[in-house]
């Protein structure tokens, strides 16, 4: 098989695998704070193999996420385009950071994503621009912390997978 095609396929398979993991349902509260493994995986591939990731991935998987999450069409592609651009623009700076620093960056990115999703695009609440309440903010903080904590182990898993299967 063509080397490039093999790499693209393996990256796609890993992303689909993490979408499947994200779809696994627990209790309602646990579902709200469980880490977004797909977004973490997408971030990893953009940082580890920027030459293999392009905006095509952001759009295809963004639409997929929009349908799965029930969000307004275009919201997840927007988020993924931002992640892809920031990751590919600053991956040289991000890679040498300590794990705690990387976790802090991930925490901030995921907190922003969570608040972006809460923007009242349908104007359901005319008095406010956002649908976020106090409870949502607390849940978002827990969500961002969990994502930051799981970043390092997930990065190791991805690294093993990349070194074993994807030759660059």
């Amino acid at each position: 098989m063509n080397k490039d095609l093999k790499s693209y396929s393996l990256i796609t398979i890993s992303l689909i695998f993490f979408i499947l993991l994200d779809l696994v349902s627990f209790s309602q509260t646990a579902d709200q704070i469980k880490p977004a493994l797909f977004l973490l995986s997408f971030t990893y591939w953009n940082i580890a193999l920027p030459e293999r990731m392009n905006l095509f991935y952001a759009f295809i998987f963004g639409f997929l996420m929009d349908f799965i999450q029930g969000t307004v069409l275009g919201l997840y592609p927007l988020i993924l385009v931002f992640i892809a651009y920031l990751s590919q623009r600053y991956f040289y700076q991000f890679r040498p950071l300590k794990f705690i620093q990387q976790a802090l960056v991930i925490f901030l990115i995921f907190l922003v994503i969570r608040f972006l999703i809460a923007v009242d695009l349908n104007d359901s609440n005319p008095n406010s621009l956002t649908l976020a309440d106090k409870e949502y903010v607390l849940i978002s903080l827990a969500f961002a912390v969990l994502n930051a904590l799981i970043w390092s182990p997930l990065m190791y898993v991805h690294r093993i997978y990349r070194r074993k299967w994807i030759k660059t």
Partner: protein
Amino acid sequence: MSRGDHKVSKITSEAIFAVRPITSTSFLISLVLCLSLLLVDIKYKVSDEIRGYAHDVLLPLYKTVQVPGKFINKASDIWQTNQELRKKITSYEEDNEILQLINSQLKDLTRRNQELNLVWESVQIDKEAYLLGQKIKLSSNPINPVLILDVNDPNSVLLVNQPVLSKEGIIGKVISVGLRSVEVMLSQDPRSLIPVISSESRLHAILKGHGLERKGQLINVKKTAAFKKGEELYSSGLGKVFPPNYLVGRVIHVEDEPDNEFLNIEVEFLKLPEEQEYFLVFTK
């Protein structure tokens, strides 16, 4: 190597083989494209037309995810001893007898109610008006809760705005229809508005959602209205989207705030049973 593939160091004049990130131009074009899509979808609700079909395509993914859970359930079932199952069967038989007795009483009550011309729409006992939908997925986003149902009935007439019911009452309405999948907007959704009537004071109002596991609110209720804490809210049938007389929620807090033009009335929605697998789509 073609021009533009690498930069040249100004100090050593050596080539810097840097990977070119996504260019600013392509990033900006993508950004404009995403924002245009967002605006078009917000204004014209284009995605509602295709979401149902998208869920049809994604159905294998949803089903794949359910496989481990089903396998674990099967395994735990096998672990249960035969004796335990027999005990259960005996208790179920006893319960069944009691339920049959209650059912016969209810049938009698229903008959009496019909005779007394109490509110009992004929459609409520029309079995063909309901379609059984299996829960496929409940979106984890608390402020945009979406339920996806699999209605595998080739003769079904599924349409947008059809109400969806649990065993307790109304839980939402269909917002997108596919070949066999439907996307349901739950009553807790901030976009959801349900006309309701209270059980005791018989007052009409509009119930608005505020997100999953959050209290709903009766909007634009005048301060003279006499809603009582604890009374149940039923669908009033106004607007002709939701059928009348189905339980929607319960008033849990009534407050007259001095700086508010209207009463602040909080409502507890019906609990969305996490373990409930099947829901009913009301088709008439």
